[in-house]
């Protein structure tokens, strides 16, 4: 059987209504689309807090900024 791509998350109806009014005039077509987008961004932001630059990369950036004359 093919794995499901979507599942249901329950949110309070009042929150749903607020989100509905927030997307008026934007390009979002539904509250689901907007909520998926927001959650994805929040998760990505949280993941992004982990340090991802190695000391070697920092040195490379330093060299680059120095070559550009910023340092």
């Amino acid at each position, binding site marked *: 059987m093919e794995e499901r791509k979507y599942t249901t998350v329950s949110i309070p109806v009042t929150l749903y209504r607020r989100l509905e009014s927030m997307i008026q005039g934007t390009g979002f077509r539904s509250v689901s689309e907007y909520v998926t987008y927001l959650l994805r961004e929040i998760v990505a*932001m949280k993941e992004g807090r982990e340090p991802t630059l190695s000391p070697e990369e920092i040195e490379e950036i330093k060299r680059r900024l120095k070559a550009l004359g910023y340092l």
Partner: protein
Amino acid sequence: MRLLVFALDGMPFDAFSKLSDELSNMSELRDGGKWGTLRAVDPPITVPAWASMFTGRDPGELGIYGFRHLKRGTYEGYIVTSQSLRERFFWEVEGLRSIVVGLPPGYPPRKYGIWVSDFYTPDTNRQWTYPAGIADEIVGSVGGYVFDIPYRTDKKDEAYKGLVDMTVKRWRAAKMLMEKYPWDVFVLHEIGTDRLHHLYQKYFDPQHPQYVPGTAYEAYFSEYYKLIDGLIGDLVRAAKKRWGDHMAVAVLSDHGNQAQRGVFAVNMWLAEQGYLHFRSEPARGEDIERSEVDWKRTQLWAWGGYYARVFVNKAGREPQGIVSEEEYWDVIRDFRRKVKALKCPWGYVESQVYRPQELYRAVKGDYPDLIVYFDNVRVRPVQTVGYETYWLSENDRGPDDSLHSFDGIYILSPYEPGKRDMYAVDVASALAGLLRKRI
């Protein structure tokens, strides 16, 4: 309403004033909108300027004062990257879909919407877009991507070819993303406008002390701005065709550019004034960070750049600090007085000395003790040492024709037409307001 932002690094207000008759697309936006001088943040430098403009937080609130910081309580510096920015951009706060191309500090790629990193990026072999797959799409459709060009060079012809190639590739990439993916806010940052001034200011600016009139380089000024203007027109038309006319457009710069009047070896001057001492004679052109500073006798030392960051070697704070709490204010007062009396080879100049607390609404992070602009940023302070004099004939990091100024430009369209100057920190609220407008 959608918002299309053209973030033109270092474009001075007077470049638009001089060329507006030739820049038909920008002039059309101006005629249907609000425009004027955009007063840059302090310091007027790419990092933190764009971050301040799009978060609405001043550099002190962001705790970002330049491309690098000195860790307080040490003599060690570190680099500011995209990860140093903890505040959210206004489109992130509003939960809008965004595509951002090249906005500094932009590496590693920010994980929100679609993000293409900036000139910090070491090379295209590492992840330079978010999501990662966007990179292949750009390279596939544009045939390559260029983050920046070597601009501190004497090879001026070669540099211009590189400048145009970089710009055309970036705007093609932007057009592909803009047409393919949905967005509410699209930000396209172009570093080329800043590089144009650093490369060629002395060939088109009679204010430059080494002004060279009548060369072939003179034409690059209008030629490049016309290229940018044409690309703006093309992108606006393509965006409206794809997504409809319900669209606002902003043209912004983070600071201006002006002729460099001189180069000042600030640490040599501090040494002459008795604030800074060395344990051994530094080699000519040696970086202060590599010099054998005699910390037991040093009260003040500095970093250079477009502005000087002056650090007090404070007892109880720095590992070998000597300036006591009581002496601290006397040293600062004395330093201010001496800067005021500083004489350049061409006469007295007006310089500004600020404590960060005097410039910002809050002061976070690793802030310097003092921020100094020499001759209203027309004199470049350099931090290298070992010179016979503190006035140098040229920049220590290679040829450079311009320095930054506070007078950038902005155009917001559609808006009630008129010229009104604006402060860079107010950009975020102005753009968020524009997005909410119904037209």
